[in-house]
């Protein structure tokens, strides 16, 4: 029976306790709901307030990005990658440009690699800030989301100065980046990082250590390491379960070969651990940005490539550590100007599949706490 199946996972309920049977209720959460982070739809079977079963329904934000990529020249496709994970466009572009470079067997100049590291880490910080802020909002705290969006605004402004656009940056190019830094940009960047460090300390006092926040997140939505690996989780979700796997460390790419990253791992495996991993990665990101600024080499920002880029016939898989996890591009070229296929391995999509497994036996309020801790971006799930 579905009910008993669900009961098995409820902690604290004694086995065999006699209960009054009530009718199960079907609750449809989303696609228009304040806390499903976009247009995720959850069809939940409820027993009272306890979730017995849950089915995520996706596809409400499907824009056919992979198909669009097949119909654009390689350089034209980079702009469409912005919209896949719309909270970290810069990282998406790094993945796509990196895949094409790997296919073509070229290596961007050292300066371009460091620029990619710097903007990539800033984008990671921005993405984690949104994740942490909206997580606070999901749990009913109003203030964190406004503070984190204020800080993210600084990153947006820096990106605007760098590439003329706040969000759809279109900054990466195969073989390098589009522009060099404007005058004084790095100085501004350092000022911003100093300010961000102060603001982060303030944010930590607001959420970390708060009794209610602890009570809502600790021990909720536990994922054990085997399960995490079995479901193919990556990114902060995997590292929060105690698995030390970070592509920046384990399979370093571009400038990460020279800049060592301190991997952030937590052993608890619950919502709190996932929140903590993101917070620690923001701190680590600030450090990496400083390192990148200090070590920023001179030289060209891009290598010269043909205008009509024709990657050689063949296929390749290139993955980076995005803010959500392993963002991979499976790139197949038939030797023409257009990719024959560009498959995006979106970490949010893969991370989503563990949701029904975890939700079973939790309360409705926990659904929001757990879903928020996944940090899903539906743009990447549906693509």
């Amino acid at each position, binding site marked *: 029976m579905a009910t008993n199946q669900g009961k098995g996972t409820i902690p604290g309920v004694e086995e065999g306790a006699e209960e009054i049977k009530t009718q199960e209720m079907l609750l449809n959460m989303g696609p228009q709901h304040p806390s499903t982070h976009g247009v995720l739809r959850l069809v939940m079977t409820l027993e009272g307030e306890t979730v017995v079963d849950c089915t995520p329904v996706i596809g409400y934000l499907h824009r056919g990005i992979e198909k669009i990529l097949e119909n654009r020249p390689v350089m034209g496709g980079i702009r469409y990658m912005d919209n896949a994970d719309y909270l970290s466009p810069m990282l998406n572009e790094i993945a796509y440009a990196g895949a094409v470079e790997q296919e073509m067997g070229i290596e961007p100049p050292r300066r371009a690699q460091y620029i990619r590291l710097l903007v990539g880490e800033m984008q990671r910080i921005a993405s984690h800030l949104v994740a942490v802020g909206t997580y606070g909002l999901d749990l009913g*705290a109003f203030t964190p989301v406004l503070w984190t969006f204020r800080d993210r605004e600084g990153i947006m402004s820096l990106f605007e100065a760098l590439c003329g656009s706040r969000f759809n940056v279109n900054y990466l190019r195969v073989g390098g980046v589009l522009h060099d830094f404007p005058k004084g940009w790095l100085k501004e960047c350092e000022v911003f990082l100093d300010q961000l460090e102060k603001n982060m300390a303030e944010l930590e006092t607001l959420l970390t250590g708060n009794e209610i926040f602890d009570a809502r997140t600790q021990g909720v939505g536990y994922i054990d390491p085997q399960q995490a690996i079995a479901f193919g989780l990556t990114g902060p979700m995997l590292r929060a379960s105690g698995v030390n*796997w970070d592509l920046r460390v384990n399979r370093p790419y571009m400038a990460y070969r020279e800049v060592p990253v301190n991997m952030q791992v937590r052993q608890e495996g619950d919502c709190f651990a996932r929140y903590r991993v993101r917070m620690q990665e923001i701190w680590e990101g600030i450090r990496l940005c400083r390192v990148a600024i200090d070590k920023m080499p001179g030289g060209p920002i891009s290598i010269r490539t043909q205008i009509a880029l024709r990657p050689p016939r063949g296929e390749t898989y290139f993955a980076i550590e995005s803010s959500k996890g392993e963002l991979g591009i499976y790139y197949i070229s038939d030797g023409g100007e257009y990719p024959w296929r560009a498959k995006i391995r979106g970490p949010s999509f893969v991370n989503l599949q563990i949701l029904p497994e975890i939700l079973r036996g939790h309360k409705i309020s926990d659904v929001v706490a757990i879903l928020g801790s996944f940090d899903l971006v539906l743009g990447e799930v549906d693509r």
Partner: protein
Amino acid sequence: MHIMAVLGDSLGNQLFNGIFSLQFLQFLITFLSYFGFVLTSAIILILAERKIMGWMQDRLGPIHTGPWGLLQTVADVGKLLLKEDIHAGQIDKSVFLLAPAVFMAPVIAAFAVIPFSPYVSLPGTAIATGIIYYVAMSSIDVIGVIMAGWGSNNKYSLIGGLRSAAQMISYELPLVLSLVGVVMLTSVLAGTPGYSGNAGIGSIAIKEIINFQSVSAWPGRGIPFWDFVFKGFTPWAWFFLVQPLMIIIYYICGLAETNRAPFDLPEAESELVAGYVTEYSGMRWALFYLGEYGNMTIVASIATALFLGGWSGPGVAFLTAPGMALGWQILGNILGIIYFVSKAYLLCFVFIWVRSTLPRLRADQLMQFAWLILIPTTLGNVLFTALVFLVLNGAGLPNWAFLIILGVLNWLLLAGFIWVVSRATAATTRRAQAPAIRASRAAAVAGQIPERTTVTSSQR
């Protein structure tokens, strides 16, 4: 004919005398100012909340409508009045339409027992059942919430309504029990030197309780300036000093009663869309919000009256003393209103502060907190107060010694309470159970997946 004429004459006389009597004038002024206060207070609080939360969150809040954004709420209410009143198709119409009124009416009615100054207070403030009347009125609110939840015929509304019912009923108990301590203090103090009333007979009338906090023994007797300041203004005798734990518990219960953060589960936006107000729009929606903010004012006002000395402040009792001229009397009452309202709004500010700081509790944690922590504590306080009085009375100590010793013990209890709560939240929530959950989940999946907890680059 004759009898009728006499009757009519006397009725007319009574009516004439009644209308132009001082009592009627008092009633009229008070009634109008109350009614104005209830509605404007909600509007002011909504604006204040938006402004204060804005500052706390590093943004501006409303700035465009009127000077400094002052007319924002007025404009909002105007808009809501003109909006279409949308009814969803399958609603239970009579219940749905009536719910906002059932929610709003007791809020306005509860103001009847709140005195703002010695003169500006409805006749209800003197009635003997002040606290009970207030508790009764605040309990009726829950019916409006359930009606809204049921009548909307929406699952989110229903869950919100039921959650709210459970929450409001649970928090009603510690709320009442936390006020019992104050009533006990009045019965102890009654009749002793410096206090009014007959020995051993306390009061639950709110106006009386305010009087109990204004001791007639003040320093500087005879020196006009000190007379002016301290007559009727004795902050060292306010009950929050004697029962600090109780005002905090009352305040927490007030947060839950008014469905404010961190107890705003019924309208938990991130889970239940808008809880029981999901299907409402236009003025009916606004009534729920006005009711919520009105409720906030009431909770703050009751806390002010029972724990913070009500209207007492420098000059009030001096200026409103029987022998003073009418102008001084009016000035004294205005001062009293100012003191009362500023104390109440200080507490409302804490409401807003809490809202912008804390996340929301889960439903079961909320109930645990009420039944396992608040109710035992408040019940214990009733016993404790009585016990201390019996012991000290048996030892022959005067009442002021009782107050001081009880106060000291209560402050110690407050520290203990905070310690216990922080320990209890750690123990009762799943933080403590997390290792056990982890172990059971690990055991459940151990057979299915080959054991490999870490993956290193060499293995890959």
